[in-house]
């Protein structure tokens, strides 16, 4: 349709006036958004690419062109690889755990049993909190002295397990992840709940009559019909995991001893504390690249799975 009207007006380029008369409204309606978008998104994006070829501290007027210098540095930057490893852990656990929990809760509430509204309201509630609030509350929960978690462990006789969760380099990343999963599960849950409304009951009935047990019905009948929802949620969580910043920054700022450093916090530090603008721009592009590739691969995999 778009191409068609474009072709038919081709001769009209003879007279710019007619072109303008025909498209004036369209141009004027799109222009404000496009200008804002061009100034604060398109131009900065290309500027990021340019900066990634320079060495600049943000203050000097001169940006030194160093070609691929920053890109070469990436490969020797142990700190970056450490951060990427943390991102990978984050993505794997932070995608699978909310999906499993969210689907599980959605299935428990599928037939809208008594108390449905109360449970749905509560499970979804963390979703309206800012990550700063989540970070502070969970920082408290993990607190070695007055934290809820250690208190609970003590009460059930697991004193030996309790520790300063965020201060222990072996546990800090998983502790922050735990808070993120707590926050994210409610979102996954409501989306699955909506997806389950479209699962055909007739097919489930038919499977029951054919003698399929509950597990087979779930795995062979319900899950395939949720494939689309799984794709969307998976892609969203995956991208979110590679771009994670807020909750890590507020809870641990990448510490202790870089145990929770992710690309997001590393980029921020390089850009706004170390003032290594060129290298930080390169890191931000690495981040963009990874999340683009990840979502692309994921969608491809799903498409193949469906075919």
């Amino acid at each position, binding site marked *: 349709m778009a191409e068609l009207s*474009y072709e038919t007006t081709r001769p009209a380029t003879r007279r710019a006036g007619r072109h303008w008369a025909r498209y004036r*409204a*369209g141009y004027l*309606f*799109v222009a404000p958004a496009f200008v*804002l978008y061009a100034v604060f998104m398109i131009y900065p994006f290309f500027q990021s690419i340019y900066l990634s070829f320079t060495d600049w501290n943000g203050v000097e007027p001169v940006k030194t062109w160093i070609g691929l210098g920053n890109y070469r540095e990436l490969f020797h930057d142990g700190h970056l690889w450490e951060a990427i490893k943390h991102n990978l852990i984050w993505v794997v656990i932070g995608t699978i755990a909310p999906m499993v929990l969210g689907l599980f809760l959605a299935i*428990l509430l599928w037939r809208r049993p008594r108390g449905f509204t109360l449970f749905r309201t509560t499970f979804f509630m963390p979703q*309206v909190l800012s990550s700063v609030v989540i970070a502070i509350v969970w920082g*408290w929960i993990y607190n070695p002295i007055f934290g809820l978690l250690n208190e609970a462990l003590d009460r059930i006789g697991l004193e030996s397990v309790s520790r300063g969760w965020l201060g222990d380099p072996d546990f800090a990343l998983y502790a922050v992840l735990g808070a993120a999963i707590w926050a994210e599960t409610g979102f996954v849950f409501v*989306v699955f709940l909506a997806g389950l409304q479209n699962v055909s009951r007739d097919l489930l009935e038919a499977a029951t009559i054919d003698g399929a047990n509950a597990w087979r019905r779930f795995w062979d009948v319900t899950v395939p019909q949720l494939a689309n929802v799984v794709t969307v949620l998976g892609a969203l969580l995956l991208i979110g995991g590679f771009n994670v910043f807020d909750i890590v920054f507020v809870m641990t700022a990448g510490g202790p001893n870089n145990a929770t450093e992710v690309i997001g916090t590393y980029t921020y530090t390089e850009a706004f504390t170390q003032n290594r603008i060129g290298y930080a721009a390169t890191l931000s592009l690495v981040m963009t690249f990874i999340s683009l590739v990840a979502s692309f691969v994921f969608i491809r995999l799903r498409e193949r799975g469906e075919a």
Partner: protein
Amino acid sequence: MAMHARRGRSVGYRLSRSGWEIGRYAVLVFFFLIFFVPFIWVWSSALKKSIEIATDPFGLPDEFCWQNIKKAWTVGHFDRYMGNTVIYCVAIVGGVTFLSALTGYALALLPLPARGAILLTFVLGLMVPFQSVMIPVYYLLRDIHLLETYWAFILPGIAFRLPFGIFLMRAFFRGLPSELGDAARVDGANEWAVFRQVMLPLAIPGLATLVVFQFIWTWNQFLMPLIFVQRDELRPVSLGTMFFFGRFTADRGMIAAGVTISMLPMIVLYLILQRRFIEGITAGALKS
């Protein structure tokens, strides 16, 4: 067939059925506690005296003490942070919604050359993280002297969210028949009037979804203000809460009060507009 099977259920089946029900509720209540106890803990800490927090950190308050809430509101600058957040929310939610409706409508129903290319340009913006533009935007804002003003969050905030809004609104307008405007056009209405008086009212359900989404995003946005509006007078609640936390770390009553103030407006709004929130979020997720 199925009917017969249902009618003929045995006593044993019913027993195991109620066993299932108990198990289901045990699990649901367990998760209810996991999701709800942190809230109760923070809210009750906010209403306790400092001594009570130290002696009985997990119990409910003996009597409500509003001291900490009051102190956080004034001494902790939450009055100002809240005002700022309202300014940001009105500007960014309004800006994104209006511009997305305008652009989404044009891309869906108005004649436009290179429509596909324009749409693609916007949609690509859905896939890049904010980090990929944050550094140049920082220096751009500095150079045009908007850094550390309200605009430093408002303008990039709107720009960054346009792809999502336009995508959503275009999908919505495509569902409307384009002939709807023709009657008004025959009557001599210009395109703006057609949009404003015929199309926009029909798009209210779509706009509502976008507003909910955009509102939650703006209220909770952290990284943008962290970089662009650090000054205390300009901080929104999200950022203000972090600095407040740094300032009163040792005073648990104060922290709990600050966190409570910070989350309360959103929670109240959520409880009132629950269905809108959940449907908005679900629709937004499934359409993207």
